[in-house]
């Protein structure tokens, strides 16, 4: 074994930075040379080849990028860490990663502890070679990060463009052509890998049954050799296709099979137990891989939501289908209101488009109400109407969107997108930032059933865009990702006014105790060790979510099935913020059941429960998906309509009262009874700029009214 090279070249024109980095690295035993410019660095390199270079983006004369480009042209492959004062855009980042093969991009100013930790993950300091690193090397080659189709295309496009430049040096052209071939080859291998994955479970099954046969006939040398041969093959093939873990299990199986002595009885059980264990664990890994590969292939196509369009037969079907494709929506069509209710009973659609000319049910927008009953959840609607329709009707009927007049591909697709957002409004959201699709799909499979919306982000460089779009309540962040550590991503978020309060849970490797400390230094809230356990993931995520949101299971009031007072307060905040940002109004209203306290006395036990249950039901069946409904006291409810005025809310109350007056409740006195409702409103921002103030204002109004009557 040759002595490990730990010589680090630092290039930065800022003396303070140079000295800081120099001191840091020397403290860990690295050999360091500090240079001020690209020219100086190149001269130093003549003397000794560095194991790693730390390069500043901005340098006098030749900048950092050009220097790296030259270095790569000369076929120097040592890892390079680029320090930059600005967060770079995705294009630049991809260029750095794929073309210049920069190992890591680090934000300036650096945090010493994080800087060292990130660097040590690339080359361990001379004294202590970390065991994880040593292991990695022993297992043979590590597959290069695989670019996705869009990245490949983008990189190739960039190269093509550069090749058309007339002033290009012949050497540069030669280098780019070579690079192009590399990318193309890698892409071809990636495709071969995808088809290989399909065979993997079968190959593993063959291995499993060969091992079983050998196990059942321990004295049969031929069967033993056969099993060895199969294991040997899987090891070479799976490993070469980049499935290192599978290859490793096959290798261990082969090694153990060699030690089986068909002529001896002693110690054989121990060996076989070990072999069976490898087979079992290998099976799990193979299953995980094929699951992840199939979901990752599908996930791009996974629809954002499903939608049932209740429209007259033969009307605008092409527009609808086109819109569904544009909005990534799974669409089903039905031509009658009865058909729609039947369909909803069978399939839980996420949304519905209702052409009002088809609503043949009696009463106002009764179809929408019945669809919600069938779906058992507050699904968003889009109404299509050729007649004029009032805003109060739209809101009360539950339409998040109205298409008046002709439905086109454009307005239908927009409607589907609005409904997607409206449907997701109140689910807590978790963003999982990890380059490993296996882990992302695991996280999703654990959190989704718990009512949490999960978004996976494989490219951390675009995190800010995703933050704005997705507005997560919590972030799961992997530490080690190609080109960018989780620490850098976390630092960026924590420096951002809008996102610094979003909790970040780091995913660190188990053995890495320093990494855990670094996670907190970077601003993380918590960490989870890999491999991540299902229960632990769910409980930690829920615990952290409950600090910002109320927990999923305790959000709903069991009697009325609307939000609890606490959940209503928590969920109204983001709505108020959005309305404030967009200079929109927001209408809040309190609904009180008159003489609620005396209901049980007058009409018997459970009378309170009955009325409260019915009121909650009606609130859930009416109003839009994005509106909030909650129970703020025993006989008091509150609704919040973003974007609306109290004028509209007043009319909505009238509609609500119409429905309510049709409700009769059983009484112990032998006949049915009805109850009265009292209303009062408050408008944001005029009568209150937060939830509590709006609530108080509306409650005061309620008191005044009851005093007057």
């Amino acid at each position, binding site marked *: 074994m040759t002595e490990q090279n730990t010589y680090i070249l630092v290039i930065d024109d800022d003396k303070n930075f140079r000295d800081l980095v120099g001191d840091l690295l020397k403290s860990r035993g690295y050999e360091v040379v500090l240079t001020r410019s690209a020219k100086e660095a190149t001269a130093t390199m003549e003397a000794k080849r560095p194991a790693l270079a730390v390069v500043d983006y901005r340098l006098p004369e030749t900048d950092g990028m050009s220097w790296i480009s030259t270095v790569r042209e000369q076929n120097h492959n040592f890892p390079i860490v680029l320090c930059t004062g600005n967060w770079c855009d995705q294009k630049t980042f991809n260029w750095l990663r794929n073309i210049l093969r920069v190992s890591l991009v680090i934000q300036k100013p650096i945090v010493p502890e994080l800087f060292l930790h990130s660097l040590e993950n690339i080359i361990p300091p001379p004294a202590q070679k970390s065991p994880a690193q040593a292991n990695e090397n022993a297992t*043979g*080659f590590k*597959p*290069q990060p695989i670019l996705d189709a869009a990245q490949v295309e983008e990189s190739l496009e960039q190269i093509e463009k550069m090749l058309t430049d007339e002033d290009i040096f012949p050497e540069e052209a030669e280098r780019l052509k070579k690079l192009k*071939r*590399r990318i*193309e*080859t*890698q892409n*071809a*291998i990636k495709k*071969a890998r995808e088809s*290989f994955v399909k*065979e993997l479970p079968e190959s593993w099954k063959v291995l499993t049954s060969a091992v079983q046969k050998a196990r059942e006939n321990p004295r049969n040398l031929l069967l033993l050799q056969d099993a060895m*041969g199969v294991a*040997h*093959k899987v*090891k*070479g*093939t*799976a*490993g*070469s*296709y980049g499935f*290192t873990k599978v*290859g490793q299990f096959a*290798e261990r199986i082969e090694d153990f099979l060699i030690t089986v002595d068909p002529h001896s009885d002693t110690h054989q059980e121990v060996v076989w137990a070990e072999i069976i264990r490898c087979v079992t664990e290998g099976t799990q890994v193979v299953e995980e891989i094929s699951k992840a590969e199939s979901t990752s292939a599908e996930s791009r196509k996974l629809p954002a939501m499903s939608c049932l369009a209740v429209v007259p037969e033969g009307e605008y079907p092409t527009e609808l289908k086109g819109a569904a494709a544009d909005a990534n929506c799974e669409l089903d069509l039905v031509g009658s209101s009865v058909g729609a209710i039947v369909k909803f009973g069978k399939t839980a659609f996420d949304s519905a488009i209702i052409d009002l000319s088809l609503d043949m049910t009696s009463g106002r927008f009764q179809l929408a109400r019945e669809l919600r009953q069938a779906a058992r959840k507050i699904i968003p609607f889009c109404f299509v109407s050729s007649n004029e329709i009032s805003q109060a009707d739209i809101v009360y009927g539950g339409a998040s969107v109205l298409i008046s007049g002709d439905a086109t591909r454009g307005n239908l697709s927009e409607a589907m997108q609005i409904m997607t957002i409206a449907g997701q409004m109140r689910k807590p959201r978790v963003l999982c930032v990890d380059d490993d699709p296996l882990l992302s799909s695991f996280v999703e499979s654990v959190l989704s059933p718990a009512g949490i919306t999960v978004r996976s982000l494989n490219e951390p460089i675009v995190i800010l865009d995703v933050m704005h779009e997705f507005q997560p309540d919590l972030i799961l962040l992997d530490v080690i990702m190609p080109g960018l550590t989780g620490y850098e991503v976390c630092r960026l978020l924590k420096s951002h006014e809008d996102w610094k309060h979003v909790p970040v849970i780091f995913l660190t490797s188990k053995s890495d105790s320093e990494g855990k400390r670094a996670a907190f230094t970077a601003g993380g809230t918590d960490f989870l060790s890999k491999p991540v356990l299902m229960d632990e993931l769910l409980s930690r995520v829920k615990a952290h979510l409950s600090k910002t949101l109320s927990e999923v299971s305790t959000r709903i009031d069991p009697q009325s099935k609307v939000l609890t007072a606490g959940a209503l307060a928590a969920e109204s905040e983001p709505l108020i913020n959005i309305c404030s940002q967009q200079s929109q109004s927001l209408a809040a209203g309190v609904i009180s059941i008159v003489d609620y306290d005396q209901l049980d006395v007058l009409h018997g036990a459970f009378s309170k429960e009955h009325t409260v249950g019915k009121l909650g039901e009606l609130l859930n069946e009416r109003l839009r998906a994005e509106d909030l409904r909650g129970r703020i006291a025993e006989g008091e409810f509150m609704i919040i309509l973003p974007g609306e005025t109290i004028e509209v809310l007043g009319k909505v109350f009238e509609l609500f009262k119409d429905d309510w007056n049709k409700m009769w409740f059983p009484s112990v006195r032998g006949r049915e009874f009805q109850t009265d409702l009292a209303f009062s409103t408050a408008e944001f921002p005029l009568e209150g700029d937060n939830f509590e103030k709006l609530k108080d204002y509306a409650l005061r109004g309620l008191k005044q009214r009851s005093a007057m009557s």
Partner: protein
Amino acid sequence: MTTAMEIKQVLLVDDDSNIRILAQMGLEGLTDWKVELASSGAEALSKATETKPDLIILDVMMPGMDGPTTLGELRKVETLNDIPVIFMTAKAQTHEVELYQKMGAKGIITKPFDPMSLPDDIQGILSKG
């Protein structure tokens, strides 16, 4: 670095089609070599006679005629006995490496291999002489 020899035609012998596909992709994608494929020792002998490759990459463990036997057969044929041969194996223990070299193999590529660095690995073996 000196290139030991000019390679135009390579014969790749492995009974596993997945390995053949992967190695061919790496070699043809990254170099200008033409890669001919054979799935058994017997096929390798006939293909070698036909195409006179500049290099043969030979899997060690194959059903029927295995790698070392195939090499022995190649050496018996006068027109083929100076073609450099590189073994490919998933089990490269020191004594085996020595054995293969004694048999006249130029070197060994261990499985699993990285298709992206396969050409460099081969060049490395050949330039060592």
